[in-house]
C-alpha cells in the first residue's frame, strides 16, 4: 500500500456570495454594486490563476507538536491543499498600488478557491481510509488545536518542497500562503469519519464563514432551570436576548463594556481576548465569560446574576411649577398622559384634562437597552432584522407603563383622552416600526419626523384604550422630538434673550436661540456621561458611586442610597476626573500618573470612614475608588479618563461652534439649560472645572431635568401647543459639526484639562 496520495480531480471554485461575505460585504452595503462589479471583472483571471494541489500522507505526531491528548508518535494522516501563489500575488500587488478593494477581494477569492478544494479532498481521504481500514477520530488544525510545528511535520512528511515547491517560514507558515494543512487523528475503528471542519470547535470566532449547529444551553435562574437553543452563528448574548432574558449590554454585544457576565457551570466556553480583559484569572477558571463573545461549542449549563435595574433613579422632574400630587384625582373625568421615551429610561405623567394637574408619575427602564445602550446600536439592531422585536419591546414598555399609571392613580384606561409622546428620532422610528436604515448612514434622512397622530391601536397595537396618540415633531435625524419638546418647555419660542439648551446625553444635542431664530446641532459625546464605555461605569443605580473626593491620593466616595459600591455613575465619573486633575494625578493632557501608585498609599475610603488600603498589585490598573461586596476593586483607568476627555470636548466644542455660527458671544447667552438626568445631578462647577462648559456660563446654568417630558406636558395643557411645536420643529436650522473646521479645532483644544 502507498504512503502518499496526490488528490486528483481538484476543481477550484470561487463564489460571489462567500467571497463578499468574507470581507463583510453584504447586499445592503452602499458599495455592494461596486464590489460585485470588481468581482465580475477579475473573476475569470483569478480562476485561471488558481493552481490547485492536494496531497494526503501517513505520518506521526512529532515531539514538538505533541499535546497532552495526542502525544508524540500518534499516527495521523496529514492533508495539504493549496491553490498556489498567483491569486495572492495579485492581492499584494493591488494593495501596493492603492487598489484596496481589489487587494482585499483577491485575498477573499483566494480563500474561497482554497476552501472549495475541501470536498474532493474528503472524498479521497475516505478512499484512503477504507483502503487502509482506518477511521478518522478528529481533525486538527494549527494553531488552534495543535502547535504550528505540525505544519513543518506535514511539510517534511509529504515532501512538499521537492514535490510542489512549497516553502515553509521560520514561523511554520507555508509559502504560498494560500495553503492549508490538516492533521487527521487515526482510529482503528474504520466506521468513524470525523474529518470535517467543525466550526463549533474552532475558536476563530471572527471567521466570516463560521457555521454553528444548534447547541443546547440550560439557564439557571434562582431555583429554576430553562433550556434554550443557540441558533447558527449566534452568540450566547444574542440567544439570551432572543429568549427574553434581560442582560445588560451597553456596548451592543461587541465585547467592549464587560457587562454581560455569565458563569459557565457545566461545559466549556473558549476564553477570548475580551474575556481576558474583563475577568481575572480566578474568575475565568470559575467559568466567568462575556455572553456576547461566547460561541459555545458544546451543550452548556450557565448561571448569571441579574442586575436589579428596577432601582434605577429616573428623572421625571419638570421645568415648570412644583408638582401638586393629587392621588385622589377628584373632579376629573378624563385625563391626558405625557410620555418621554428616553434611550435608557421612560417617564410618564398622568394629567387631569381639565385642571392640567399632575396626578401621578411613573418611570421605567427602556427594555430596548438589551439591544445596546445608544441609538447607534439600536439602529444597527433594527437594520439587522430586529425591527419588529424592538417595536414590540417599546410597545410593551409603554403599555405596561400606562396600565401602571392609571391603576396606581385609581383611574381607568377608558378615561384617557390624549397621549403625547416625546423622544429622539430613533425612539420614534422604533416605536412606529419605520425602517431605520437611513438614520444610520449619510445623509441621515429620517422617514417621518412630523407630528404623527394615530389611535391607541394604530400606535401601540392594543384595543384596550381609545386615546389619541401624538408623537411630537423632531428637527432632524439627530435632533429629535425630545429637543423640540425641550425647547418648548424652556420657552425658547417666547424669549427675546438668546438661550442655550444642552442635552448631556450620548448624542449631545444642543440648541441656541430665541423666538426669532433657533440653531441646533448634535455632537457625538458618547455614553461616558451615562457610565457607558467606562470600565466600572454603571447607570444611576443603588450603590453607584456618585460623588468622589480625592485628597493627597486618597479617595472618599459616596454611593447612591449609601449602598456598597457597585460601579461609577455619570456624576461620579465627572467628579473622579475633576478630583484626579485637582490632585495632579492626571496631568493637563489627561495622562494618569501611574508612578504615584507604586508607593502603596491608602487610596480608598468608603463614606463610612473605613480606609481601604490597596496593595501595589491592586492599583496597577487604575485609580481605585472603592471595593464592592465581592471584594473587587473599583478602578478608574487611563482609558476612562480618555473617554471623558472625548465626551467633554465634544460638548464644549459643540456649544462653542454653535454660538459661533449663531453669531453670539458666550457673555450674550441668557440662560444655559442642562437637560437630562445627568445634567440634573451634575454639579455645574464641576462641569466647568473639567472644561465641559465654559466658565462664562457659571452663573447662568439651570438644570431643567426631563425637559422632553415637560414639553409634552406643556403641549397637552395648552391649545396652541401644536402650532408652537410645529414652528420650532420646522424653523430650527441644523448645522453639521462633523466636517466643521472650527469644531475640530475647539474639539482638540478642549481635550486638555486646565491645571489649577
Amino acid at each position, binding site marked *: 500500500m502507498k504512503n502518499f496520495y496526490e488528490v486528483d480531480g481538484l476543481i477550484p471554485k470561487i463564489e460571489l456570495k462567500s467571497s463578499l461575505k468574507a470581507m463583510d460585504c453584504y447586499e445592503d452595503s452602499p458599495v455592494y454594486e461596486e464590489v460585485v462589479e470588481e468581482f465580475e471583472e477579475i473573476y475569470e483571471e483569478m480562476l485561471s490563476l488558481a493552481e490547485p494541489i492536494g496531497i494526503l500522507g501517513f505520518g506521526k505526531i512529532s515531539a514538538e507538536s505533541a499535546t497532552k491528548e495526542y502525544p508524540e508518535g500518534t499516527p495521523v494522516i496529514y492533508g495539504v491543499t493549496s491553490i498556489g501563489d498567483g491569486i495572492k500575488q495579485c492581492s*499584494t500587488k493591488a494593495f501596493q498600488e492603492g487598489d484596496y478593494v481589489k487587494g482585499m477581494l483577491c485575498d477573499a477569492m483566494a480563500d474561497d478557491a482554497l476552501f472549495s478544494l475541501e470536498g474532493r479532498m474528503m472524498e479521497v481521504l475516505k478512499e484512503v481510509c477504507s483502503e487502509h481500514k482506518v477511521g478518522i477520530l478528529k481533525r486538527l488544525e494549527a494553531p488552534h488545536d495543535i502547535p504550528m510545528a505540525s505544519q513543518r511535520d506535514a511539510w517534511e512528511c509529504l515532501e512538499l518542497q521537492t514535490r510542489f515547491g512549497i516553502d515553509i517560514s521560520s514561523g511554520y507558515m507555508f509559502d504560498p500562503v494560500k495553503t492549508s494543512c490538516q492533521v487527521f487523528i487515526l482510529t482503528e475503528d474504520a466506521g468513524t469519519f470525523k474529518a470535517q471542519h467543525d466550526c463549533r470547535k474552532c475558536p476563530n470566532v471572527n471567521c466570516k464563514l463560521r457555521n454553528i449547529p444548534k447547541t443546547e444551553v440550560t439557564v439557571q435562574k434562582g431555583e429554576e432551570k430553562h433550556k434554550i437553543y443557540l441558533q447558527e452563528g449566534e452568540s450566547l448574548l444574542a440567544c439570551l436576548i432572543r429568549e427574553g432574558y434581560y442582560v445588560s449590554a451597553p456596548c451592543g454585544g461587541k465585547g467592549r463594556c464587560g457587562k454581560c457576565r455569565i458563569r459557565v457551570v457545566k461545559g466549556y466556553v473558549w476564553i477570548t481576548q475580551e474575556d481576558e480583559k474583563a475577568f481575572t484569572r480566578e474568575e475565568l477558571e470559575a467559568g466567568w465569560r462575556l455572553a456576547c463573545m461566547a460561541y459555545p461549542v458544546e451543550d452548556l449549563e450557565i448561571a448569571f446574576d441579574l442586575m436589579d435595574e428596577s432601582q434605577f433613579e429616573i428623572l421625571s422632574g419638570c421645568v415648570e411649577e412644583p408638582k401638586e400630587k393629587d392621588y385622589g384625582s377628584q373632579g376629573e373625568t378624563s385625563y391626558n398622559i405625557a410620555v418621554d421615551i428616553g434611550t435608557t429610561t421612560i417617564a410618564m405623567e398622568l394629567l387631569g384634562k381639565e385642571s392640567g394637574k399632575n396626578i401621578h408619575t411613573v418611570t421605567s427602564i427602556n427594555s430596548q437597552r438589551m439591544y445596546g445602550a445608544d441609538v447607534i446600536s439600536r439602529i444597527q439592531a433594527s437594520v439587522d432584522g430586529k425591527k419588529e422585536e424592538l417595536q414590540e419591546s417599546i410597545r410593551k414598555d409603554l403599555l405596561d407603563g400606562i396600565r401602571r399609571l392609571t391603576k396606581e392613580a385609581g383611574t381607568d384606561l377608558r378615561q384617557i383622552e390624549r397621549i403625547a409622546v416625546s423622544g429622539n428620532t430613533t425612539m420614534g422610528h422604533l416605536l412606529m416600526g419605520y425602517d431605520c436604515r437611513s438614520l444610520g448612514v449619510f445623509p441621515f434622512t429620517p422617514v417621518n419626523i412630523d407630528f404623527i397622530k394615530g389611535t391607541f391601536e394604530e400606535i401601540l397595537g392594543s384595543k384596550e384604550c381609545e386615546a389619541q396618540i401624538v408623537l411630537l415633531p423632531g428637527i432632524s435625524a439627530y435632533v429629535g422630538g425630545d429637543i423640540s419638546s425641550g425647547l418648548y418647555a424652556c420657552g425658547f419660542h417666547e424669549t427675546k434673550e438668546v438661550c442655550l439648551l444642552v442635552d448631556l446625553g450620548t448624542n449631545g444635542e444642543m440648541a441656541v436661540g430665541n423666538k426669532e431664530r433657533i440653531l441646533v446641532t448634535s455632537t457625538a459625546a458618547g455614553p461616558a456621561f451615562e457610565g457607558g464605555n467606562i470600565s466600572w461605569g454603571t447607570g444611576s443605580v443603588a450603590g453607584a458611586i456618585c460623588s468622589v473626593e480625592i485628597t493627597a491620593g486618597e479617595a472618599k466616595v459616596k454611593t447612591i442610597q449609601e449602598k456598597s459600591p457597585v460601579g461609577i455613575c455619570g456624576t461620579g465619573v465627572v467628579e473622579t476626573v475633576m478630583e484626579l486633575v485637582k490632585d495632579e494625578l492626571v496631568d493637563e493632557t489627561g495622562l494618569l500618573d501611574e508612578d504615584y501608585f507604586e508607593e502603596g498609599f491608602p487610596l480608598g475610603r468608603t463614606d463610612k470612614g473605613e480606609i481601604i488600603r490597596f496593595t501595589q498589585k491592586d492599583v496597577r490598573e487604575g485609580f481605585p475608588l472603592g471595593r464592592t461586596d465581592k471584594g473587587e476593586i473599583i478602578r478608574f483607568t487611563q482609558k476612562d479618563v480618555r473617554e471623558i476627555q472625548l465626551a467633554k470636548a465634544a460638548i464644549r466644542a459643540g456649544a462653542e461652534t454653535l454660538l459661533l455660527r449663531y453669531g453670539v458671544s458666550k457673555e450674550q447667552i441668557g440662560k444655559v439649560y442642562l437637560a437630562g438626568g445627568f445634567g440634573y445631578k451634575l454639579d455645574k462647577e464641576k462641569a466647568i472645572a473639567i472644561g465641559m462648559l465654559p466658565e462664562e456660563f457659571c452663573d447662568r446654568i439651570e438644570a431643567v431635568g426631563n425637559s422632553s417630558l415637560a414639553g409634552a406636558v406643556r403641549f397637552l395643557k395648552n391649545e396652541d401647543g401644536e402650532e408652537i411645536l410645529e414652528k420650532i420643529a420646522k424653523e430650527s436650522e441644523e448645522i453639521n459639526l462633523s466636517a466643521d473646521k472650527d469644531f475640530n479645532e475647539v474639539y482638540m483644544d478642549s481635550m486638555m484639562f486646565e491645571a489649577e
Partner: protein
Amino acid sequence: MATAIVEEISEFLQKGRAKNVKKLVEEALAQGVDAKEILNEGLLAGMMIVGGKFKRNEVFVPEVLVAARAMTAGITILEPKLIEVGNEPIGKAVIGTVKGDLHDIGKNLVVMMMKGAGFEICDLGTDVDADTFIAKAEEIGADVIGMSALLTTTMPNMKDVIDTLEERGLRDKYIVMIGGAPVNDSFAEQIGADYYTADATSAAEVAKAAVDKKKAC
C-alpha cells in the same frame, strides 16, 4: 475654511467615488487651489472621517476600501504637484509583518489607514527580519516602525527587532508600534514596544498623535 471644491472632494472620497475625486482634484488644481490644501482638507480629511466611522462600526471594511481607493486616485493626480511644492508628510513609517509570518491583510489595512493619515509609508511586506526593518527605517529616516504578527510562534520576533534597536542604541529614535490578533497591551509592555493598537484606524490615529508629540518635544 476649506474651499468648496475641496469639501466636495472629501465628500466624494467618503462615498468612494474614485472617478469624481480624480476629476475634481484635476479641476481644483486647474483653479489654482493649493495642492497641500487638496491633500489635507480634501483627501486626508475625508479618509479620516471614514476611518472614524469604521472604528465606530458605522461603516464596514468594503466602504473603507472603496474610499481608500478613491484616495489613491486623488493622490496619484496630486503627486507631481506635491513634489513641486515640497510637501512634507506628517511622518514616515516602515511597516511589515515580522520574520516567519506571512500574513499580510492586517498589515495592508494599517498601511492604508496610515497613508490616509498623511504618512509616507515604506511597506516592507511579510517575513521581514530585524535587520531589514532597521536598515530601511534608518535609510528613509522613519519616525515609526510598525510590526504585525498573527501567530504566537512569530510574536517573539517583534521583541528581536526592539532588542536589536536597543543594542545599536537606536531605540529612542523610533516609535515602535505593534499589532495582530495574538498581540495585546501587556505584550507590548513586556517587549518594550511603545504602542499596541487593536485596529487599523487606531493605529493611524496613535501614530499621528505620537509623531506630533515627538516632534513637539
